[in-house]
């Protein structure tokens, strides 16, 4: 019988929390055992949820790039270039440079406001996924 990595980490975490940590007399070492338990639990969750999260991110980014295209047509070259990168990578991380360029263009610019209105729901979904691991 073999365990999936996520399940193995979860059991290691449980053992650290329930068996090993409480048996450690030194306060600092005991805290470290409990911290290791928390970290292993989160890594386990990350492994478990990772594939579904990656699929969701990809689908959302495809939709976002499609929506941003018309809004940012004719935008300053730095914005267009950042949008091109987002289209090439289809990752939430690639939105960082685009956001920097949008703010550099001007936060009061109507098309920047419209673009932010499209980008932020995608960021919300992404941080919700991260919180599903972090909490």
């Amino acid at each position, binding site marked *: 019988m073999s365990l999936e990595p996520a399940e193995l980490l979860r059991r290691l975490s449980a053992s650290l929390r329930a068996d090993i940590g409480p048996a450690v007399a030194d*306060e*600092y070492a005991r*805290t*470290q055992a409990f*911290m*290791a338990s*928390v*970290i292993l639990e*989160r890594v386990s969750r990350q492994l478990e949820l990772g594939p579904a999260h990656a699929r969701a991110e990809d689908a959302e980014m495809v939709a976002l790039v499609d929506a941003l295209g018309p809004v940012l047509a004719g935008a300053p070259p730095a914005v267009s270039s950042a949008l091109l990168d987002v289209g090439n990578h289809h990752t*939430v*991380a690639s*939105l*960082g*440079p*685009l*956001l*920097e360029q*949008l*703010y550099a263009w001007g*936060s009061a610019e109507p098309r920047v406001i419209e673009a*932010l209105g499209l*980008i*932020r*729901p995608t*960021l*919300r979904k*992404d*941080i*919700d996924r*991260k*919180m599903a*691991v*972090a*909490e």
Partner: protein
Amino acid sequence: MSDELLSVLTPYLAERLEADGEVVVDQLDRIAVGWSHETWLFDASWMAKGEPRSQGFCLRRDPGNALLRQMSDLGEQFKVLRCLEATDVPAPEVYFYEEDPAVLGAPALLMEKVAGVCPSPWGKAGREFYAAAAARGVLPLSFTESLAAIHNADWRAVGLDFLGVPELGDAFARREIAKWRLLIEQSGHPGHPILADLIGWLEANAPSTDRLTLVHGAFRTGNVLIADDRVSAVLDWELQVIGDPMYDVAYMLTELNREGTDLLSNVVPRDVFFDRYESATGITIDEDRCRYYQLLYAMRSAAFWMSAAGLFADGANRDLRLARTEWSVSVALERAAKELGY
């Protein structure tokens, strides 16, 4: 570790205290295994000019791998605390700063051991302590008056302008943004686009201030000592700046610093805080500016956690509590998104 410290501490004290012979150190105890500087408390007794002397001390050492190591310097803390001695701010008296790590094992600051307790506001016992003190009514006033004393301090007259003085207007907010952006860059953390959104928003909306005061930067329960329901000392002089007093007020008002209660910082009723703070300082609380600074605190929190996670990632510090902060970055960014309205 305490034996190692003791072996260098006793001869150091004998010399600095001009003792006639040996200094006896008792009750040497490390009080916090924290992320910042090491903190040790002890009692010392010695003979000087034929008279017996005894005193409690607090020693802080900088191990060089602590959180905020880039911006938390014990030498600066020593200077700040020395300046505060000429003000009404309750703070420990400082005695010696030893910069040479060869002397006490690390740069170190020796100061007065102030009487009082400092319950953590994040645990049940601490929350109960503050709720009971709030009901008695003395601590809420003392806590508020301590913040007012910080903001009323004549910082230029006592020499605190060495901290750097921003121009009036939006320079203070911009300087803080730049400071935390630098910490984020130094952390080596990949970041997240919410941070880019937050920083862009903060830069586009930096508020103007027409009054500069000393700002503590982390004024909350857990960072003050309490004796007989009064603040006996404001601690954690690591983030102080000359800036907009609303930066501290925003920290009082934020939900981040209270848990399961409407009491500001777990101890002060909101109306009591507004009344007492405004009457003691003559400053009207600007809640719009406070809301802005709460977003700046979201950036600061993210920067803290990125820096902490980076300390573990680059091998500078093996404390697993730092590794755990990788996920605290997400919590800070989620809060930022909420503050930005999404």
